[in-house]
């Protein structure tokens, strides 16, 4: 059973501001029945441009209802510029925290607010549309690269699993894990580079035996656990000078994004821990090889 705070249970059992505002100035709809949670937020401004009324309807679990309820309380009385400052972390904080796997509920609240404001501006000035910005990365849950960048940036995320907890991306077929990892690396580029610089210094000069051992060790300790988490595996096939030949096993073998994994995970880690000069290649399928002698 989830360890919900009293605050979450209070907002779930006695949700504030349920319903929809009559003649709303902005309406935001996020999520879907298929995803397991969805939220419709509507608001109305008063003469001074402050949110006079904000109401929600939510399909979802206790934390989704509680996040929506808190969201309406947080934005009431605020101007749109002030409301824009509300983050998913604010929602989680008011609730006294959410289980890590439920953080996506707080993100959904923030996204509904953004969608409702976008709707308001598009009606007003024909400004930015309420449609999702960016390109879809996770097709299972319809999450875009912009949305992933945002949760990574605002919550300091560093793993695919965290991204899944915060915005669901990658929680379905897993086909987008490589792309999510790219986005994490992109957003946290500087931080990751800083960490890499602080990583254990690579030995200046390795004997061949040392190099092989270090490659195997890096695969065992740094690469395999991540792949196994997704049902895949990797095997070291051969080392030819600076060319490392590996084979993917399990889920990775059929994975459409295994090329990304190869470059962004395997090669990056081996360069980080062993030698900058290494390149990684997938084992050629012996049956389809044209160069077989």
């Amino acid at each position: 059973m989830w360890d919900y705070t009293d605050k979450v249970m209070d907002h779930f059992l006695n949700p504030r501001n349920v319903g929809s505002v009559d003649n709303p100035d902005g309406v935001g709809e996020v999520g879907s029945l298929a995803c397991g949670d969805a939220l419709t937020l509507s608001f109305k401004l008063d003469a001074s441009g402050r949110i006079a009324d904000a109401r929600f309807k939510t399909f979802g679990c206790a934390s989704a209802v509680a996040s929506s309820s808190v969201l309406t309380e947080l934005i009431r009385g605020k101007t749109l510029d002030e409301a824009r400052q509300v983050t998913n972390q604010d929602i989680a904080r008011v609730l006294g925290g959410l289980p890590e796997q439920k953080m996506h509920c707080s993100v959904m609240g923030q996204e509904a607010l953004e969608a409702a404001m976008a709707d308001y501006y598009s009606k007003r000035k024909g400004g930015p549309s309420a449609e999702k910005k960016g390109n879809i990365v996770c097709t299972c849950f319809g999450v875009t690269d912009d949305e992933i960048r945002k949760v990574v940036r605002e919550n300091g995320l560093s793993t695919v699993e965290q991204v899944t907890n915060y915005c669901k991306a990658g929680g379905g077929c897993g086909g987008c894990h490589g792309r999510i990892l790219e986005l994490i690396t992109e957003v946290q580029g500087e931080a990751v580079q800083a960490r890499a610089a602080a990583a254990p210094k690579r030995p200046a000069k390795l004997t061949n035996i040392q190099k092989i051992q270090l490659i195997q060790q890096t695969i065992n300790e740094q690469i395999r656990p991540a792949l196994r988490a997704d049902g895949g595996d990797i095997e070291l096939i051969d080392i030819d000078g600076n060319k490392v030949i590996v084979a993917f096993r399990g889920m990775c073998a059929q994975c459409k994004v295994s090329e990304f994994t190869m470059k962004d995970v395997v090669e990056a880690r081996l360069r980080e821990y062993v030698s900058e000069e290494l390149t990684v290649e997938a084992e050629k399928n012996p049956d389809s090889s044209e160069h077989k002698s």
Partner: protein
Amino acid sequence: MSTKKTTKSKSASGSCGPECACHGPMPVLENSDIQSWPKRDPQAVIYMDNNATTRVDEQVVAEMLPYLTEQYGNPSSMHTFGGQVAHKVAEARQRVAAILGCLPEEILFTSCGTESDNTAIKGTLAVLPNKRKVVTTRVEHPAVLTTCRDLERHGYSISEIGVDRQGRLDLDELGFRIDDNTALVSVMYANNETGVVFPIDEIASIVRARGAVFHTDAVQAVGKIPLNLKNGAIDLLSLSGHKLHAPKGVGVLYVRKGTRIAPFMHGGHQESGRRGGTENVPGIIALGKACELAQQHMAEENTRVRALRDRLQAKLLASCTDCMINGDPDRRLPNTLNISFEYIEGEAILLLLNQYGICASSGSACTSGSLEPSHVLRAMGVPFTAAHGSIRFSMSRFNTEAEVDFIAKVMPKIVNRLRELSPFVKRGS
């Protein structure tokens, strides 16, 4: 919404009087206004989650208790003090054999249903090194499904048979998938989520005719429906103590005489060398007693408990709109009701039920921590809209009509309340 109301508790009415220890007091609903929820009373429990685990029968506790205290001998010992424990373990073995309709020497005690499944699958493959294929179904319990999928990484090929919208297997497809390379076929007796019962004897015959070993995970079936292994073609069968009113931590693998399996746990000579490790004596004795009681109550399971389930089903279908039963209603365990409420989410339903002390479970994504709903409902093609709102009530002989009626009274209020919150329900519909 502002009027706070506290709900008083009093003893459960119905056939369970106040002297009955099977559950605590039941909260009482006052009129139909349910804008605020009762404060949860930790004493009030209406337990309808018996496919998850069951209450240990008091007679079972009484039977096992001496073997936790003064009768602590090791059944393998050469002294009378240990030897009398061995006699009691032998008696338990006979009792388990009786409910399965098999020989005592075909009973192998394990630590749980999952260990039994692992032993059956890996133990069979180990003695058939030339066969590299396992056939199973998409709706198995994770104890079988995860074990099989792990084997894929070790070079085995796994064939998972699908089910139709009612959760039924296509037996022709099953037969078609079994080839000369198939070592083992593993098909569950009854599904834990929907209660759908597969035609296991028919499947066992098909598998035997094709020359493969047949295992069935019967964790949900034993004690709920009568079995007789002597006449069938089942080679291996798993059961779990805590699903039939014995404690957690004990299970059984039935191994038909002549079926070869390699031990999963190596160690001493216990269980005829097929499972090392000192026996969980109190657990085994408890399981023996639980099997004896289950046999005595078998008729009740299929009459009174079935009638309770049917009563709840009829009442919910009549009082709640947009709901549907999951799983073939004609071939189902007598105790299981899996029902989907559209447009609302399962975890939210469970938490509101919990406010009344009602224990059930859900196939919704949110309850499991994963993002996708139950693999069983997805395999059946239940639409996501319904899968997310699925609730499983699973009963036992300890449930009463008063409890069923209480749930039937509360459920429409919970459903309506959550639908008031739901953006998918249009006003007036």
